[in-house]
């Protein structure tokens, strides 16, 4: 009886000393670490690309909005007409037009600043036959620019309206080009990620071929072997993807914070251009998930191929 009690106690002690069962496919091997490194780096690069594309997209939309919210009236000096009266009339017409928030005429100092690159400083613009400029800001509601143009043609024939459509079109083209280039870069980075993760996964599976053979020898079904490897590579992919994606997200957060803190009075403009919004971070998360899914898929296909070659 006492002997039985002793044996049971010994068994309890030995059983309690057992560690949690280790995974069949070894973690922490050189091939595993290399694969995780590749996944982390490629996720980081892909996340940077998607973050940059998102920032450019946001900036382009902002440019378009800014350009579309401002138009310029130009009143030309003409013999026989009082330009000051024409400017006042144009201001009045603009101020009464639908969708206009404000109209402001460029003063003497502002005109002097505008012509200084060509004529130098200290020139009095009132002595020159320069057109007068009126900046009209729209309030964002639907402005009737055709009616404004008609009214100006009737009452102030020396005035012309510049909607900035030329600049807007050029900016749109430039923004679209940058976006296309960014998207192409993102696609290339994702393709490179898929290829490198596939190659690295194949290498890691090949390095574990003795494990596959042993599992077969002790009666493991293909499904079991594939499941063990998929779990292993999914864990590696998740770690690598989260490390790479997390590093990119931290980098964007730190860059936005640094720009806001360090760039002085213009900080708002600079910071605004590199601060990623929640959709940008969601994009980075999406890239990390894509890379994890690619790793899982690549490992599944590779393990199946390896199992076929063993049979």
């Amino acid at each position, binding site marked *: 009886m006492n002997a039985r009690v002793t044996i049971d106690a010994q068994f309890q002690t030995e059983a309690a000393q057992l560690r949690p069962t*280790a995974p069949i496919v070894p973690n922490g091997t050189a091939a595993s670490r290399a694969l995780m490194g590749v996944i982390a780096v490629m996720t980081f690069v892909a996340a940077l690309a998607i973050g940059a594309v998102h920032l450019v997209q946001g900036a382009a939309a902002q440019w378009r909005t800014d350009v579309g919210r401002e138009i310029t009236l130009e009143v030309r000096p003409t013999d026989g007409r009082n330009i000051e009266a024409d400017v006042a009339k144009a201001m009045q017409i603009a101020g009464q037009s639908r969708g206009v928030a404000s109209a402001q005429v460029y003063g003497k100092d502002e005109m002097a600043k505008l012509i200084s690159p060509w004529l130098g400083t200290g020139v009095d613009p009132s002595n020159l036959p320069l057109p007068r400029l009126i900046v009209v800001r729209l309030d964002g509601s639907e402005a009737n620019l055709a009616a404004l143009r008609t009214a100006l043609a009737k009452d102030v024939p020396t005035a012309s309206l510049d909607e900035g459509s030329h600049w807007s079109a050029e900016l749109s083209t430039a923004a679209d080009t940058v976006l296309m280039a960014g998207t192409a870069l993102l696609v290339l980075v994702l393709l490179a990620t898929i290829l490198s993760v596939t190659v690295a996964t194949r290498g890691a599976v090949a390095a574990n071929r003795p*494990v596959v053979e*042993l599992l077969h020898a*002790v*009666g493991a079904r*293909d499904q079991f072997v594939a499941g063990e490897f998929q779990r292993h590579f999914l864990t590696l992919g998740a770690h690598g993807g989260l490390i790479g994606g997390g590093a990119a997200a931290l980098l964007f957060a730190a860059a936005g914070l640094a720009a806001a803190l360090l760039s002085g009075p213009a900080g708002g403009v600079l910071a605004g251009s590199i601060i990623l919004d929640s959709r940008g971070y969601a994009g980075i998360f999406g890239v990390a998930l894509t890379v994890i899914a690619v790793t899982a898929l690549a490992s599944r296909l590779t393990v199946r191929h390896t199992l076929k070659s063993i049979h």
Partner: protein
Amino acid sequence: MVRLEKVDLHYRGAAVLKDVSFSVAPGSFQFLTGPSGAGKTSLLRLLSLSLRPSRGLLALFGRDVSRLGSEEIAVLRRRIGMVFQDFRLLDHLTTYENVALPLRVMGREEPSYRAVVIELLRWVGLGDRMHVLPPELSDGEKQRAAIARAIMVRPELLLADGPTRNVDPSLAQRMLRLFVELHRSGTAVIIATNDIALMDQYDARRLVLSEGQLYLDE
């Protein structure tokens, strides 16, 4: 249980086994012997379903293995225990985890087999080495762990490739007793060995391989 008829095995273009025919009865005991390079390991790999015959019939447990798919092969392998010459223990798993591997691949949960694995480890003299990783084990201990893994699921056929190659004579004798005990409990045993002293200790049929051909010494 095992039946080979006119089996040839070609490996990387070379004829490893030629026209081999023999059968193994359930619960029987035999030594497979012959000089190095005679084809002993290849014949055991055939019997453990790691290789397929290039020609001839190999039937295991009444099934022609050439007609079996991978799932059926996996099921048959569970009825066979294999002790490899190079042990094939996984270095990142403890002795306990290595020995329990056949149960784990069958989908058994760890608590359900804990007691039986610990009992088997004690039986082969590794009760105090169950937490140790294989690189810390001596060759003799590795050999015993490999044997324990092979007999974990109480196989109907046990194949052992040079099981006493790396151990001293007294341990070799102890291992032979272990195989005999297993044989007496109903398992058919085939031990591949060059150790004449070991074979002389137990009266059993000898399958002699020479240059890929088999001779029976009943």
